[in-house]
């Protein structure tokens, strides 16, 4: 068993090494190798996951990574119910996307390189979720960040792509500093960072203040990785990468790492109401804020990116109010439907030769019927319409928020649900329905349905987007997914928990979703109201949204620019060159001058020396005389 668990993470590593070292030779088989590695990884994971469902927990230490004497940090892997859910999502979705990529990336000159990075990504991601301590999680954490950097900038000769990659890495580093600070506090307080040594003793060791500090520091990390306000700015630029990457890394797996981390640290967060409040509020704000930006965008990938931000916000509401299982549940269903949405967007791009604007599309369902159906399924799932997957998880989060006493967050969540359904169906209607907007464009581009290697993984995710949420149904008095995740991350216990009629809450949620779809239908299918007239009526708001609140511009002109300017023109050219270094030179110059002074005294003429000697004698005599007197 110990070997089997290790094998889960080893397979992608092997794929990485093969394609990394021998990419020149594996060229056309790189995709097959990488996808097989993932398949094997998934198969290795099945049995351990099954055993965990039956009630086992695995925690194996393979070697001592950093032995510091008093503090020892092992290299260990742990599978419990929380990591089992993640493990399933990551290995399975990654596998599907690897298969899809075989078709999508065909013919790219960097084919082998692409799969090298992708395998390395999965390896890091698995390390992140299976590591049995915070520091190993951090290794995975930075590892996925690195792969994200490499894959966003995959087409490195494009300046925008390279810039976006760098931006992602740097913004993430802000969060990483927070993560590290959290780890430092944990290590100092518990003398260990291993989960098994930390969580059972949280109550004995931590004061609420320390728990708050740790919670906030870790959450700073989560904000970076899971792109929460204000550290979200890298995620939309991350769309520069290949679309399957956006699907796998920037929707299904990596960006959810922050949610996983907060759920994993539930014992610490439970102790700090302040930290939880912050998590939930930031989540709610991001959910709403990002959804507003998705309303006006015309770039299909960016719409999905903002939607991801918004959905991540929901997950943080879930873990922030203490209903950890709901957050993780939504993470899982989101991986299915958002993964699918991106793959669908990829299929559209594939057949549209990389075009992204909704202005150029319309009526695509005739050309790409399968993709169209799948996109509708995924949109229904994200829109929260039963019995699709997203309905159950989103409802669990919102009901949880209300029951835990956060009515405002609940209201924000419901409004966001309306916007979500609206912008998703705006997307679907304007891309797949209606008429072709640019005559003959499809003919010229030879627009056609994606090949099977791409549609099959999409269908698999499509099925999961429907049935994936059913584990959230009531079965014999309990919700299976709740019971399962709560083994590791039990729901926060609050005194005086409010109870609401479940049916009523569900009804409201469904209404919000339907209302959103209806609005989109009115505007984009029936055109009773045109989008243009709405935009004109709310001109200032529309401009603000269309320019995404000018946040990027703000950051550039008020943070990045001044910072470089100060570094270059003040620190370097003035402080370093004109003050410190010039000071050193001045010191040297003075010494040289003094030397010169003495050197000029050495004239070589005896008379001059005699002159100086006599002056000296006179001075000495005078001094003696003064002293005697």
């Amino acid at each position: 068993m110990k070997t089997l668990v290790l094998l889960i993470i080893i397979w992608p590593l092997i794929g990485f090494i093969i394609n990394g070292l021998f990419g020149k030779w594996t060229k056309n088989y790189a995709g097959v190798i990488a996808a097989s590695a993932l398949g094997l990884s998934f198969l290795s994971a099945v049995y351990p996951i099954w055993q965990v469902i039956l009630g086992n927990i695995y925690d194996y230490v393979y070697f001592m990574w950093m032995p510091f004497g008093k503090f020892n940090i092992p290299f260990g892997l742990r599978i419990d119910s929380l990591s089992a859910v993640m493990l399933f999502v990551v290995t399975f979705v990654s596998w599907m996307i690897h298969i899809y990529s075989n078709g999508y990336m065909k013919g790219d000159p960097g084919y082998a390189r692409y799969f090298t990075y992708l395998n390395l990504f999965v390896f890091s991601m698995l390390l992140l979720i299976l590591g049995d301590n915070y520091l190993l999680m951090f290794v995975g954490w930075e590892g996925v960040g690195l792969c994200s950097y490499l894959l966003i900038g995959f087409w490195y000769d494009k300046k925008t792509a390279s810039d976006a990659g760098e931006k992602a890495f740097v913004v993430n580093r802000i969060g990483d500093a927070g993560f590290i600070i959290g780890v430092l506090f944990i290590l100092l307080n518990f003398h260990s960072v291993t989960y098994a040594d930390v969580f059972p003793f949280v109550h004995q060791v931590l004061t609420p203040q320390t728990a708050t500090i740790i919670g906030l520091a870790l959450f700073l990390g989560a904000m970076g990785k899971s792109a929460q306000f204000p550290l979200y700015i890298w995620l939309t630029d991350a769309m520069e990468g290949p679309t399957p990457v956006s699907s796998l890394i920037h929707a299904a797996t990596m960006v959810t790492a922050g949610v996983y981390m907060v759920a994993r640290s539930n014992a610490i967060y439970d102790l700090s109401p302040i930290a939880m409040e912050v998590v939930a509020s930031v989540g709610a704000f991001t959910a709403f804020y990002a959804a507003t930006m998705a309303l006006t965008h015309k770039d299909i990938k960016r719409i999905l990116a903002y939607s991801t931000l918004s959905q991540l916000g929901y997950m943080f509401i879930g873990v922030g109010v203490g209903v950890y299982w709901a957050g993780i549940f939504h993470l899982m269903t989101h991986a299915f439907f958002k993964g699918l949405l991106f793959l669908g967007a990829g299929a559209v791009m594939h057949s549209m030769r990389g075009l992204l604007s909704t202005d150029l599309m319309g009526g695509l369902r005739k050309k790409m019927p399968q993709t169209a159906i799948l996109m509708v399924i995924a949109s229904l799932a994200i829109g929260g319409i039963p019995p699709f997957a997203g309905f159950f998880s989103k409802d669990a989060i919102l009901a949880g928020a209300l029951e835990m006493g956060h009515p405002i967050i609940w209201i924000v969540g419901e409004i966001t649900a309306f916007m979500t359904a609206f912008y998703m169906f705006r997307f679907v209607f304007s891309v797949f329905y209606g008429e072709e907007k640019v005559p003959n464009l499809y003919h010229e581009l030879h627009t056609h349905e994606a090949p099977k290697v791409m549609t099959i993984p999409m269908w698999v995710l499509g099925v999961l987007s429907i049935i994936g949420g059913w584990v959230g149904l009531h079965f014999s008095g309990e919700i299976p997914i709740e019971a399962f995740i709560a083994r590791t991350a039990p729901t926060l216990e609050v005194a005086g928990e409010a109870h609401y009629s479940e049916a009523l809450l569900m009804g409201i949620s469904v209404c919000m979703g339907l209302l959103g779809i209806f609005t989109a239908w009115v505007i984009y299918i029936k055109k009773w109201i045109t989008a243009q007239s709405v935009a004109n009526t709310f001109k200032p708001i529309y401009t603000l949204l269309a320019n995404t609140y000018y946040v990027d511009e703000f950051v550039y002109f008020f943070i990045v620019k001044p910072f470089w300017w100060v570094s270059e023109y003040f620190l370097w050219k003035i402080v370093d060159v004109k003050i410190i270094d010039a000071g050193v030179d001045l010191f040297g110059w003075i010494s040289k001058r003094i030397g010169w002074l003495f050197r000029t005294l050495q004239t070589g003429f005896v008379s001059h020396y005699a002159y100086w000697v006599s002056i000296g004698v006179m001075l000495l005599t005078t001094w003696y005389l003064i002293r005697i007197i």
Partner: protein
Amino acid sequence: MNQLHFPILSSLVFIPIVGAILVSLIDSKKEGAIRWVTLVVLLLDFVVSLPLFFYFNSSTYQMQFVEKVPWISSLGMNYYLGIDGISLFLVLLTTFLAPIAQLSTWSGITHKTKEFNIVLLLLQTGMLGVFVSLDIFLFYVFWEFQLIPMYLMIGIWGGPNRVFATMKFFLYTFFGSVFMLVALMALYFLHHTYYHEYTFNMITLMSQPLPANLQFWLFIAFALAFAIKVPMWPFHTWLPWAHVEAPTAGSVILASVLLKMGTYGFLRFNLPMFAYMTHQFVDIILIISLIGIFYGAFVAMVQPDIKKLVAYSSVSHLGYSMLGMFALTTIGIEGSIMQMINHGISTGALFLIVGVVYERMHTRIISEYGGLASLVPIFSVFFMIFTLSSIAVPGTNGFIGEFMVLFGTFESHKLFAIIAAFGGLFAAVYMLTMFKRVVFLKPLNPKLLKLTDFNLREWIYMVPLVVFVFWIGIYPNTFLSKMHASVSHLVEQTKVVNTSPSTNGKVSFDNNKPIIKKSALKG
């Protein structure tokens, strides 16, 4: 204690000199022969140094492989060599990097090849001597000795501004050394005053403390000499000059080994000998280190020249090393030593990388590059690995050092560690921006098109560095386990804040009184 019963340290130190004599006998036109002989000598030196690692007893802090021969007995001078867990890896780093640095010069140095190789060998002797000397006089001799070959290396084989740069390097370091010499002499005589014994023995001097007011001046003098060498902010301005002008091998050795003499000096002199003053100075040095971390990063960010950028990044990296050291915790000091080793490997490697393209393009200006990934993919992969190591991505060596430094600092000074944790952000900014502009984007400069990728020689000297990047990153225990005993002992030594000489009660000093006291000075 010498477990080998063989003067292995002397062999290490003097093999390069023998090599230098050998090389001097070769006809200067036979460049190939000169290079091969030098390389073989340096490799031999490396092989000879390996038993140090395998026979090292990691359970004791005592000096090992000791050789002690009276030199000038009446003055208490001995030829006294030995290493412990602190110097072990610095010695190994030196012997490991020398052949690599030498290999990098085979096509770069074509003028006065013979002299260059002789200078390189002499430099090796000087550096090793510094790390193995346990007699402070001997230490000083080696310390000054290695200045000369480095001075020549920059001054003869350097870039257009080499003379100014080398003078600056020499005078600045020498300025520091003068203070050290005065302090060494003072230490020697004061020791006699209080303990009635003339000795240059480093171990004895460590164990017998001096009054606080004297410690103050001695600490300052030593600290000045070492801070210039490290270099700590604001004594760093010679470094960019020296790096930019030095030939590749010079930069590699300068960054990887020479700078470590400064940090090593702090560990050997300031911490154990002036433990009381060390505690008084902790805050000041931690603040200066923090300034160094951020200042180095900010200034590195805007450099147009790759070498200058890496030079300023050294200021930042060694800031971490100093931070961990003056946290005065076991993990902090071990982290500090790890950071020294890591900096030696990663920064050395980055200079080699710059050297590779410089030889082909004759420019180090970032804006003249771009798009190397598509032109020289193997070069780019290596460059990427060293870049990641430099910005301390987990899995590489850089992370281990930085995390240990942060945690070690956190144990004793929380706020400093928290601030320092954000330093990694700026490291990512300057390294990745440079990497992007050099390796990514489109190759706009037509001259770049004729670039060739690594040749066999470059492969050979780059691969070992990559091995260590990952070895230390994944299994640091190989290294940590050997330094543990010595570092723990050092931490014990710094806890002794006793300032009254134990055998003689002439001067009594109250720890609570002000540090500088004129009456005590006269005492």
